[in-house]
């Protein structure tokens, strides 16, 4: 089936199979490999994207469910100078190691800061609990979120 949706502010179309995930469509059909496939079933958050402004795992959303909706991926954040700060903060704070989880964490952090300009540590724990990172130990991710919040 053919679907129409908005990705990173651009209208686009994709021919998808009814059962395929939004993540597959983004990575394999729309040339947006930033969202990563790591667990295949919504447990790690590496594929986090915004669907109509809500943080979701793209691997659990069927591409067909995204028909007519607005998607923002990690590739779309950098367009917006305000959100670019999150990416800068992740680098400056040392919150990136292998970087495979980073796109998902960046999207989740951008989502948090859009809702909550001064997140407490507990707010950060809650908002990023769905994003697994196997390298950094998360401590620098706290630093990055605080740094990004301060720069916004």
């Amino acid at each position, binding site marked *: 089936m053919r679907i129409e949706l908005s990705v990173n502010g651009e209208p686009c179309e994709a021919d998808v199979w009814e059962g395929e995930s939004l993540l597959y469509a983004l990575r394999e059909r729309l040339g947006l490999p930033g969202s990563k496939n790591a667990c295949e079933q919504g447990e790690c958050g590496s594929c986090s994207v915004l669907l109509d402004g809500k943080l*979701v795992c793209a691997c659990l959303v069927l591409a067909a469910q995204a028909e007519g909706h607005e998607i923002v991926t990690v590739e779309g954040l950098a367009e917006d100078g305000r959100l670019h700060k999150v990416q800068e903060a992740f680098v400056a704070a040392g919150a990136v190691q292998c970087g495979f989880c980073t796109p998902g964490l960046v999207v989740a952090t951008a989502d948090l800061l859009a809702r909550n300009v001064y997140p407490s540590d507990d707010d950060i724990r809650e908002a990023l609990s769905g994003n697994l990172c196997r390298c950094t130990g998360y401590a620098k991710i706290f630093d990055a979120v605080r740094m990004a919040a301060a720069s916004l």
Partner: protein
Amino acid sequence: MELLRPSSPEEATGALGNGSRALAGGTELVPLIRDGLVKADTLVEIRDVVPRGVTGTRIGAGTTLAELELDGEIPQALREACAQAASPQLRSMGTIGGNLLQATRCWYWRLGFDCWLHGGETCFARDGAQREHAVFGNDKCASAHPSDIAAALLALGATLRTTRREFAVAELYRLPTDDDRNVTTLAPDELILEIELTTPDASTYLKAMDRRKWSFPIVGVAAARFGGETRIALAGVAPIPWLLDSVAILDEATPLPGTGYKVEIARALVRRAIEAI
């Protein structure tokens, strides 16, 4: 596979049955289909036909857990159960109606072992690897029901309105039997539309997990006080959400060698929940 987008509940139920499945948030159904545990020729997308949002004491079944965890008007037990369920990503898609229908996390069931709950002869967990498994109602199947929200609604004495009937949430669940391995009474072409809440004087939900967040319950305890009466329900202790008629029922638990610790935890959390309300 086909995807249908009906425009009314009637149209949706008309399309259900005969190998089709209702798709709401998809956080449970999508992986189950991918793993071949649910077979569906047709998916019926119901997000636009099931009520969504909270009106007084009525909650649309399509309301997401993320919306409910922020709602200051709903009873605390339900709000806390929503906030402690899954991860933010899953809560922003997952609906309350879908959450009530989620399947067990039993690893034998999830890996597609030909187990009793799947229609086979043997509960592999009873003699095998067990720790997240049941301490009540477990003589045929040791699986544990993972819904935090179901326990909360059970304690709150909520009622459900479906496309066919209205009934107490307790009646949604049934212990599976040799003749019928389903854990719910919902018909294949029946949709949950709304949840009607009662308003307790106080309520709470306490949850023991393997991680601080983003875990299914080892034991979840929902407690609600209505005047002098306190209702308590547990998640993660039986193949279905478990209403505790009295605290003494904990003495009648039938834990397996690997699940006895759950009774101990339940005892502590029940006491704390009662103290809290």
